[in-house]
């Protein structure tokens, strides 16, 4: 990653992998999309190309519902194994309660009106922190990706800030903002900021120079050049950054709620641990997995649309 020349890019291995993924998926390749080797099909057919061989397998895998069902196979197997382990008495109910017990715990919490509250407040924190963090990441990423001066002035500082392990912020945030919503949302903001910042600044720096020059040759400059050439070119990369940021936001949510809170799924985790309620603990984990997956899938739909529209 270091050859990409962003001092902020070498902090966290999670980002590095995902940037590699970006390039592998062709998202960061927008730069060469219009190169001289453009020997595409002469007639404007659908750009979608599926291999013609293995028609039946490809057909099944291309069907959305079939894919969903196939994707549920492994969770179903895990569930069955879980049920088997508990019913044969392999684990005690404190170590591993049966799936049914987890469902009962859920029903119990729903009846007390607590579960919805936990879920709502956690989701709200994630969405707020993600929105502010992503917005700031976009602004600073654009600034540093486009301006050499801003890069020289800001990059070292941002790189150093990113090197601070996230939990190190917690005491300071609590000291400054008390144990309220602000400190939690701010921590999540910090988590969401860096993936967006990194992808945007890197992608802007690698926008096809030829395209930018063509834009300038036809009189585009400043904001007009940015909105006509540079931003559209990085839209797919921005979405990849947003998805990383969202995952990061959920991670930081749990960190924030584990440490200091009286509500939320992270609180449910610590509270259940202290009371020996493994059923609720497992419930919290399952809920985090489900809500996290749903928010990521929604963003994934937006990403798909954006890549089709802009790449």
């Amino acid at each position, binding site marked *: 990653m270091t050859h990409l020349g962003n001092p902020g890019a070498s902090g966290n291995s999670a980002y590095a992998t995902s940037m590699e993924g970006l390039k592998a998926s062709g998202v960061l390749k927008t730069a060469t999309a*219009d190169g001289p080797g453009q020997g595409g099909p002469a007639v*404007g057919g659908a750009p979608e190309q599926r291999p013609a061989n293995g028609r039946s397998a490809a057909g099944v895998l291309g069907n959305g519902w079939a894919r969903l069902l196939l994707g549920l196979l492994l969770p179903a197997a895990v569930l069955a194994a879980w049920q088997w382990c508990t019913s044969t008495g392999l684990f005690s109910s404190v170590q591993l309660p049966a799936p049914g017990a987890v469902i009962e715990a859920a029903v119990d919490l729903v009846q007390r009106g607590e579960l919805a509250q936990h879920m709502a407040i956690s989701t709200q924190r994630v969405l707020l922190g993600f929105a502010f963090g992503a917005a700031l990441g976009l602004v600073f990423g654009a600034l540093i990706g486009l301006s050499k001066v801003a890069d020289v002035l800001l990059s070292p500082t941002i790189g150093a800030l990113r090197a601070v392990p996230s939990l190190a912020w917690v005491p300071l945030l609590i000291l400054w903002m008390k144990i309220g919503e602000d400190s939690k949302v701010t921590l999540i903001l910090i988590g969401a900021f860096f993936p967006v910042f990194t992808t945007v600044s890197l992608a802007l720096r690698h926008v096809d120079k*030829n395209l930018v*020059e063509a834009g300038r040759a*036809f009189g585009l400059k400043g904001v007009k050049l940015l909105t*006509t050439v540079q931003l559209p070119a990085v839209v797919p990369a921005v979405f990849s950054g947003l998805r990383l940021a969202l995952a990061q936001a959920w991670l930081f949510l749990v960190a924030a709620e584990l440490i200091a809170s009286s509500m939320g799924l992270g609180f449910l985790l610590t509270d259940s641990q202290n009371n020996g309620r493994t059923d609720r603990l497992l419930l919290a984990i399952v809920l985090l997995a489900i809500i996290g997956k749903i928010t990521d899938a929604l963003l994934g739909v937006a990403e798909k649309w954006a890549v089709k529209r802009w790449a």
Partner: protein
Amino acid sequence: MTAVLSSRHAAPASAEPSAASGSALAVSFRGLNRTFGAGANAHTVLRDVNFEVRPGEVLAILGPSGCGKSTLLRATAGLDAPSAGSVDIDGTPVQGIDSRCAVAFQEPRLLPWHTLQANVAIGLPKTSSAKQGKSKVARLLELVGLDKFAKHRPREVSGGMAQRASLARALARNPGVLLLDEPFGALDALTRIKMQDLLLDIHAAEPTTVLLVTHDVDEALQLADRIILLGKEEGREHDGATIVRTVDVPGSRPRDRGSVELARMRRSLLESLGVDGH
């Protein structure tokens, strides 16, 4: 479109620059020099380029690959600054990107997320109204034979079609100086001849000065009023390229592709380029 196409028969393009008027602008290269890098890495590409391009003239620039043809065009467009000397358009030096020029680059350089139509519209001058612009884009797309592909994205069409869209984008600007960097290189032989004729039609209908970079001697002879040959001067092989030969192409366009005189010039030009013309 019909107006432009029929104008060719009504008023054939003349080799006389005086026939051109209106927006066609003179271009002068004055002691132009371009050196890349500094110190031990300095690498002179162009040196001592002095030339006056008449307003409305079609000037072909020939030369081996890598001799600095694109560099010369970029300096004219203001995309690149000469290391010494200057380029003057209509008597005023080019400083920064010059709105009097329009470029069709060697590669199409279309925005992949726009339709061909939207890409051509980027070439429109700032002053044109939305309605004027729209009909002009439609007319240009028809001229370059892409009206059926107006709504397609660049990656959905062939390289040659993208190149034609790029030409239309440059034409949309109604430039005083039209800079074409091997615009027909990616086209098949038949489309190339069509596009060459089209260029002449447009040039006759809307006078503009054309600087046409090409590696195709026949194309130069067919389209140009004059040809300059860029290359290294004998005995100065380690310096940059300069104008080693200037040729006035006789006769008015459209020229007979089979004429004996042109065949002789072709041979002589190919010899200058270091190719056996037989």
